[in-house]
């Protein structure tokens, strides 16, 4: 396929890389380019992939220990003093445990702190429900001033990390643990706030997905295409600010929307899309995601199957939403 938005290996044997590594490699690059960049972690430097930065720039790496509230506050102080701090921990702890500090010390002051929330979704796997952040989008996207980004793969994580350093104000970047398909290309365009239509001009329905589940969305669209159903796929990586134009245009042209995310259906990306559509272009919507439950231990694959986050679930949702048209 000659689609610049998608890896040419996607439909053969997709390359597998972890989103968190994109974050770590992006930070390493940033550290080289900009001395204002500092990185904080809460005793998880290896698993959040900031170790590379820590080894290269030890004077700009701050180990906070298992104390996420203090870590977020320190980041606020660093940003107020002109630094560009990146806060790295598991999303259940940051912004989970330090949400108040994110809201008050960082976001209300509109300080340029970037929060990398690692280990999100049931895709965290064996660690179980306590460590699977399924609510992080809901609790971040309601905070004013805060930009919320969900990279779909390694390259997007790297690009989002590097671009976040150029923005003003606080940014939340949602990361995942395990190796997932490299969906996009190194040279694919990426801009925070701009949703990308990654597949086709289908007019039967549109799938808006964010995070690694975008791969399942593309696979679902392929399968539907074989059945004669034309589906457009949007990589809706920025939850806030939402790309209203791309989503509304697609909703107008297709008349039905499916959203897909490894997050609670309540309050997540799909909810953000519904808020937009309900007010400006109401069309039927089906939402694929976690339905008001905690996760559990298992392999990422088993959990995706059990919690209905696979291409087949998206296919079903598309067929259902098309039935509901008119």
């Amino acid at each position, binding site marked *: 396929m000659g689609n610049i938005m998608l890896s040419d290996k996607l439909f053969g044997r997709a390359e597998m890389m972890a989103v968190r590594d994109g974050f770590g490699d992006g930070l390493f690059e940033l550290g080289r380019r900009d001395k204002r960049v500092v990185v904080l972690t809460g005793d998880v430097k290896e698993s959040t992939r900031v170790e590379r930065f820590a080894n290269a720039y030890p004077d*700009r790496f701050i180990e906070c220990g298992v104390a996420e509230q203090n870590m*977020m506050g*320190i980041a606020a102080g660093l940003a107020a003093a002109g630094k560009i701090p990146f806060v790295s921990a598991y999303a259940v702890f940051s912004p989970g445990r330090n949400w108040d*500090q994110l809201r*008050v010390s960082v976001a209300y*002051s509109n300080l340029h702190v970037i929060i990398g929330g690692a280990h999100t979704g049931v895709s965290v796997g064996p660690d179980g429900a306590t460590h699977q952040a399924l609510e992080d989008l809901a609790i971040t996207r309601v905070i004013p001033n805060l930009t919320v980004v969900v990279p779909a793969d390694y390259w997007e994580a790297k690009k989002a990390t590097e671009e976040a350093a150029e923005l003003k104000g606080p940014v939340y970047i949602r990361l995942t643990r395990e190796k997932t398909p490299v969906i996009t290309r190194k040279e694919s365009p990426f801009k925070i706030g701009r949703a990308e239509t990654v597949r086709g001009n289908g007019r039967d329905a549109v799938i808006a997905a964010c995070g690694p589940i975008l791969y399942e969305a593309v696979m679902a669209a392929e399968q539907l295409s074989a059945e004669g159903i034309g589906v457009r796929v949007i990589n809706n990586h920025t939850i806030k600010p939402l790309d209203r134009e791309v989503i509304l245009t697609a909703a107008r042209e297709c008349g039905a929307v499916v959203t897909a995310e490894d997050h609670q259906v309540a309050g997540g990306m799909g909810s953000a899309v519904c808020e937009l559509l309900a007010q400006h272009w109401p069309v039927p919507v089906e939402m694929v995601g976690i339905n008001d439950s905690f996760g559990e231990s298992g392999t990422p694959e088993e959990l995706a199957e059990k919690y209905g986050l696979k291409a087949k679930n998206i296919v079903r949702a598309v067929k259902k939403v098309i039935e509901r048209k008119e």
Partner: protein
Amino acid sequence: MLAEEQIQKIELKADEIRKDVIKMLMAAGSGHSAGSLGAADVFATLYFSGGLNWDPTDPWNPDRDRVIVSNGHICPVWYATLAHAGAFSHELLETLRKLGSPLQGHPHYRELPGIENTAGPLGQGLSQAIGQALAARMDTSGYRVYCFLSDGELQEGQNWEALLFAGDNHLHHLTVIIDRNQIQIDGYTEKVMPVEPLVNKLQAFNWQVVEIDGNNVAEIDKALNKIKTTIDLPTVIVAHTIPGKGVEFMEGNYLWHGRVPNPIEGAVALRELRSLWGKIVSESD
């Protein structure tokens, strides 16, 4: 060391600040009286003894000393002090808590010159002060960071995360001033949730601790000078203050933590404060 004449000037300044605090709170109709009055001497000494490297005409100079107020509810005393320092028009003070005013009910970062942090939800200031202190170290800038905490606020766990961090990182250019006035909304701190033995706790967290009478300008000044000579540990000044200081019916009474005087009480308070100058002289004799 301040000369007697300078001490008296600062005491007079603290009295002016207290009167402004009463007027502001009466105009606002809500807010926190006791802590604001009790901390007036520390604020006046910090800003007017000449030891703070901060210029209100260049309020965001990168090398300025930082003052962070974590117990944001005592912001009336901060606002009044900054107005006296010339950071903004004195007339703005009466807009406290009013729609459109930069004098928010709890301080908002950079809303006014000198407001270095957002505060309100307790326990968040010290971490921000640490961030500023770390940046000073990275940039090899010589600025100092001061952070006000209340004693009731120490019940928030984040403070102990922060105390642990700063002690371990030897942030000697960081100074915490704890307003030890013994009260919080629901009563006396030692009844609600004891923070004692406070000095032992702070020392155990690797801080140098100085205890002073926080309503005595000479003692406050001495402590603020002493901390500048430390080259290793961060310092906590435990400033024992009288909540409501200067207004007899408020002094020591926790009910005034979150109350403001009505017009009659306010008139009494202002009359007392106007005559305070004489009382201070006779007390120090």
